[in-house]
Each structure stands twice: as structure tokens, then as C-alpha cells.
């Protein structure tokens, strides 16, 4: 089945205009909460600058920090694994499952495991995992992927959740009360935590100087799993490293405020050693990150702390939804990360933007997202991932615009054409502009012609 481009998928999404308005307003509300939260921190812009520079430094010394991190982690009893790509990551996990005869698995939010398609892989081997983040459990029941990296079910209304829970958990049909539905999920997942043999979590920050890592949640699901199960596997992209524990202050002050407008998530759990009798594993994953590190124009996309502030502010994301981006990490940051992994499949994504620049402004680590989108466009075109029609059109445009007399002639001819044959431009089929907008008037005189007539001495 051919994957829809962003433009095609977005067009379908927008067909339900009231629902698009609802999706847009819901996410704009989150952006507003972020703004209110920002205004409570006088040193906000300084914090962003520190967060950005700490990550710049870290990327420039990344291998040494990873070596230090691994050494400290191992000394604390954590078993460290390395995976060059998603397939190796999945293999590490299935090997641990096999070696320990694991039956029941719970997983808290990890966009890395989404990127590696872990659930799909385990399912193909007959192994089921239970996603314990409420939003992720909802989409898991519906056989969907998350549409937002922080708010996985943001594309669903409470009626949708109610119907899903009625089907899978036997809740009252038609009871849409979020409190009621959350309580049902609490009871359902509580038993899963208690029975779990293995808990898989993500990693928000990994600290080189201590070998420990931090996991941030509001629900407490990562901790319920990790402290109950006899085996805990934490999965991280290698760019999650920060140098020192004191740097956590900078990131923890920015993360939740940028993501949801809260001053901090309910739980910021610092893991250093496995508890007595527990196995703790850490999987460090590359999956294209080292390649991105080598791209001077795009490497600082690796500073991302996965807050999704860029999603919430993006006027295009809000009106097209995460599923239109056909990648695990969607939104503006996804559009500068994913072409690195597969430029052909993701060639449409850097064009799913007006380059308004709002994303770069909300990014807590000052990634120049909109500038990278522009630069990806140049690379994608030079690599040939653009339609030949567009190429020919642009070559024509470049030619005309470099020749003043030809430009003036073409302009006059085009306007003349528009006046003589308006029906050609009023074809919704041939002229996408005309589908929902009137054309600008085709005037007899351009500015240049007016100037020649009235001003030129």
C-alpha cells in the first residue's frame, strides 16, 4: 500500500473541518499553557541558551561522554548493550526475553522503541507488550500509532476512547467521562504492573558523570513497572547524554514547561543501580544518529529533548495531525530528523511547512528547525527526490528571472493571458490556487510600466 504524502494525508484530514478545528484548538491550548509557564521564569531565554550550549558541547565530545557513562553504569551494576540500528535494538530485547523466560511485559513511553518498531517486532515473534502510558494504551487497543510524541492520543475525542475502552475493558458504553475512563485504565493496568516480569522504559536524560539516567512521567507508569518487575530495560538514543547531574536542573526546568506548561512532571526518577535482586539493562542505540552527527547543517537536531513544543506551535501540524507525517516522530522535529534515515520516503516532510519559524522560537534547546527545513529542501532537490515537472518549472522560472526583458515580457503576457482566457485559470482541476481562492486581478499595467510612463525622466 503506497504511503500517502503529507499533502495527500493532510487534505484528507482537513475534509472533516470541525474536527480539524477541534484538533487545532486543543493543541493551541497546550501552546498557550507553555507560554503562561514561560512568563513565570524571568531567566527563560538564558535557560534556553544554557540548554542549547550544554548540548552543543556534549555533541562535540559525545564519544568520550558515552565511554564515561558506560563505565560508571557498569560499575553500578547496570548491563549496557549497544545497537547500531533498530533491528539490533529489537534483537537485544528479544534475547533478554528469551534468556530469562519472560512472559509478561509492560512498556512506558519510549519514542525510540516506536522508531525501532519494537512492539511490531515482538508481536511477529508471538510476544505481547502492554503499553502503560494511558495515551499509548489507548492507541495500542485501536491498533494505531501515537500521533504526538507527548500526547499520543491527542487526535482522539473522549467518545473515541470511551468506545475503545468499552470494547476492550468492558466499560459502560457511552460513558465519556475522562475520570471514569482513567479509573478503568488504572485498575486494568495496575494488575499488569504487578504481574510483569519485564519493564521496558525510555530514557529522558543519561548522565555521563554518574552512569545514571532520568525518566520523567506524570502518570507514574514507568516507575510502577520498573520497581515491580524483576528485569528493567531502559532504551535510549545515544544523544540523550548530558555531562553532569547539575545540568539536569536546566533541562528539567525547561522540559515540562515546554511540553505541557507544567513546572515539572509529577515524577522525575533518577535511576543509578538496579534494586537488590533485579537485572537492569540499558540499550544505547544509533539508528542513523551518528550519520546525522556528521551533517554540519543538521547535527544540532540531535539536541532534541522530545518535548513536542514545536508540534504544538506548528500551524501545519495542528491542521494535519501526526499521522499525516508517516513517521514515528512527526511534527517539525521529525521533518528534520527523518530525511536523514530515509530521504526518499521522507522527501515530502521538509516541504510540509511555510517556514514561519515559530518552531525554532519555542524549542527549549534552540534548534534552528525552520532553517534546517530550508536546507533539507536544497539537499532533497539536489539528490533528485523531486518531481520532474517541478524541476522543469523551476528551471524555467530561473531562466526568466535572470533576464529582465524576458521577465517583463512574460509578466505582461501572463496578465494578458489571464484577462483574455480567465476560464483557464478558473479551473479547479488545473489551478490548485483557484480551488478555494479567487485569483488576483490581472491589471493592464505593472509597476514597472507605470514608472516608465510617469516617473522616468
Amino acid at each position, binding site marked *: 500500500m503506497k504511503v500517502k504524502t503529507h499533502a495527500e494525508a493532510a487534505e484528507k484530514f482537513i475534509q472533516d473541518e470541525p474536527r480539524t478545528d477541534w484538533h487545532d484548538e486543543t493543541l493551541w491550548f497546550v501552546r498557550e499553557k507553555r507560554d503562561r509557564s514561560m512568563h513565570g521564569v524571568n531567566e527563560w531565554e538564558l535557560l534556553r541558551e544554557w540548554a542549547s*550550549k550544554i548540548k552543543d558541547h556534549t555533541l562535540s565530545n559525545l564519544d568520550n561522554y558515552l565511554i564515561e557513562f558506560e563505565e560508571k553504569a557498569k560499575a553500578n551494576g547496570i548491563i549496557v548493550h549497544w545497537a547500531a540500528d533498530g533491528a539490533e535494538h529489537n534483537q537485544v530485547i528479544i534475547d533478554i526475553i528469551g534468556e530469562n523466560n519472560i512472559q509478561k511485559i509492560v512498556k512506558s513511553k519510549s519514542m525510540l522503541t516506536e522508531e525501532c518498531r519494537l512492539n511490531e517486532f515482538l508481536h511477529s515473534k508471538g510476544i505481547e507488550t502492554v503499553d502503560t502510558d494511558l495515551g499509548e494504551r489507548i492507541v495500542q487497543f485501536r491498533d494505531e500509532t501515537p500521533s504526538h510524541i507527548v500526547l499520543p492520543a491527542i487526535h482522539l475525542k473522549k467518545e473515541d476512547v470511551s468506545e475503545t475502552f468499552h470494547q476492550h475493558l468492558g466499560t459502560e458504553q457511552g460513558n465519556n467521562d*475522562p475520570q471514569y475512563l*482513567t479509573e478503568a485504565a488504572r485498575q486494568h493496568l495496575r494488575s499488569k504492573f504487578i504481574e510483569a516480569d519485564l519493564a521496558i522504559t525510555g530514557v529522558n536524560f543519561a548522565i555521563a558523570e554518574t552512569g545514571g539516567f532520568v525518566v520523567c512521567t506524570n*502518570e507514574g507508569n514507568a*516507575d510502577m513497572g520498573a520497581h515491580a518487575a524483576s528485569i528493567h530495560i531502559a532504551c535510549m538514543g545515544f544523544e540523550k547524554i548530558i555531562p553532569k547531574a547539575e545540568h539536569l*536542573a536546566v533541562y528539567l526546568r525547561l522540559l515540562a514547561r515546554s511540553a505541557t506548561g507544567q513546572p*515539572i512532571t509529577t515524577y522525575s526518577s533518577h535511576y543509578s543501580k538496579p534494586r537488590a535482586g533485579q537485572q537492569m539493562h540499558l540499550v544505547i542505540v544509533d539508528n542513523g544518529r551518528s550519520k546525522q552527527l556528521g551533517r*554540519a547543517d543538521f547535527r544540532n537536531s540531535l539536541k532534541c529533548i522530545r518535548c513536542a513544543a514545536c508540534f504544538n506551535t506548528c500551524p501545519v501540524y495542528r491542521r494535519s495531525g501526526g499521522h499525516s507525517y508517516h513517521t514515528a516522530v512527526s511534527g517539525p522535529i521529525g521533518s528534520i530528523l527523518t530525511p536523514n534515515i530515509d530521504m526518499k520516503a521522507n522527501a515530502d516532510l521538509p516541504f510540509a511547512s511555510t517556514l514561519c519559524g515559530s518552531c525554532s522560537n519555542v524549542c527549549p534547546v534552540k534548534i534552528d528547525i525552520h532553517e534546517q527545513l530550508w536546507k533539507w529542501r536544497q539537499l532533497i532537490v539536489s539528490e533528485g527526490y523531486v518531481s520532474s515537472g517541478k524541476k522543469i518549472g523551476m528551471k524555467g522560472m530561473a531562466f526568466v528571472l535572470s533576464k529582465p526583458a524576458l521577465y517583463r515580457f512574460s509578466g505582461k503576457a501572463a496578465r494578458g493571458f489571464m484577462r483574455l482566457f480567465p476560464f483557464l485559470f478558473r479551473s479547479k482541476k488545473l489551478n490548485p490556487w483557484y480551488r478555494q481562492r479567487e485569483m488576483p486581478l490581472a491589471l493592464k499595467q505593472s509597476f514597472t510600466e507605470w514608472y516608465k510612463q510617469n516617473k522616468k525622466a
Partner: protein
Amino acid sequence: MSAREKILHAININKPELVNLPEVDMQQVTSYDDLLAKFTATLQSIGGQVLGLADINQIHSLINEELTNGHTVLNAINGITDDLNSGQDAITLEPVYKAFIKASIGVAENGAVWIKESQMINRLLPFICQHLIVVLEKDKIVSTMHHAYQQINSFEEGFGVFIAGPSKTADIEQSLVIGAHGARSMTVCILNKDF
């Protein structure tokens, strides 16, 4: 070549020129005059509750009240007991209605408290209980996370956590629901001889 060697080598050849760490200037960091007021207001705004205690023994009245109501209570403040050590598993701890735990510090800017493993005794306890009561000395409240990390060694023990209020979620149509998988409520008892 192992994955480890492949990855470290790739990073080594692809990383940019070394740039320096920035200086985090504490002079620029917010400082609150009335730490207790800021902490209290923030914690309440995120769904937590605040009580004043004159001394630690008042905790016993609170515990007795729960026991009278027939609730299962665990008190971590007095340290390891037969009922509470690192050995209890999830099945054993599941019925805990209220847990009483002492915290090291509180953070005014976000209403969070820092609890380390030796204070919670069992890592599951602060998460698996239905209601969490945390005791915090008044003069252990600091302004921001920067101040907090200056005072704690966050990776000294095997586990530690900043807890800010009760567990929550807004995953269903952005409606805030207090009480997700962790505690349904969280109360910080501020220990202050002036109360």
C-alpha cells in the same frame, strides 16, 4: 567490529570541533523571598495539598487516624521494619492505602520534593500507595532546581525521585484527571516549630 566499536568510531569521526560548556550563572537564577509561600502555592496549583506540623510526632496521630479507619498504612519515616524493607514485592505492597515518607528537600518553583531510596525504603512505595504523605522540614525548601542539585547528590543511592504532586494525566482530550497510576493524592506536611 562490535556495535559498540562501530558506533563510537562513527561518533568520533562525525562529531564537530570541541566547544566549551557554558557557565550557568546562579546570579541570573530566580530566588524567592518567601520560599514556603511559593512552595505551598505551586504545590496546591498542581493538585497537591499542604499541611503544617509542629513536630514529627503529629505524624503518629495521622497514622492512627488511618488505622482506626481500617486502612493499610506504611510508615517509612522510622526506617526499615519487618513490614517495610526493600524485599516487599508489588503483590505485598498493592493494598497500601497511605504511605508516610520523609523527603530531603522541597523546590519552591515547582512544588517538588526529593525522596531518596533510603527514605522510601522500598522503591515501589511512593508510587503504589493510593495516597502519599510526605514530611518535609520547612528550612529544607530551596528556590529552584539549580539550588536543589547543589544540595543533593542525586545519584548517590541506587534510586531517587522528585515528586511534584499526585499522579495525573490529560491524555483523554486534554482533560486533567488527578490520579493516574501513581498516588491519587499527595500531601506535604511541612515540619516547622513555629506552627
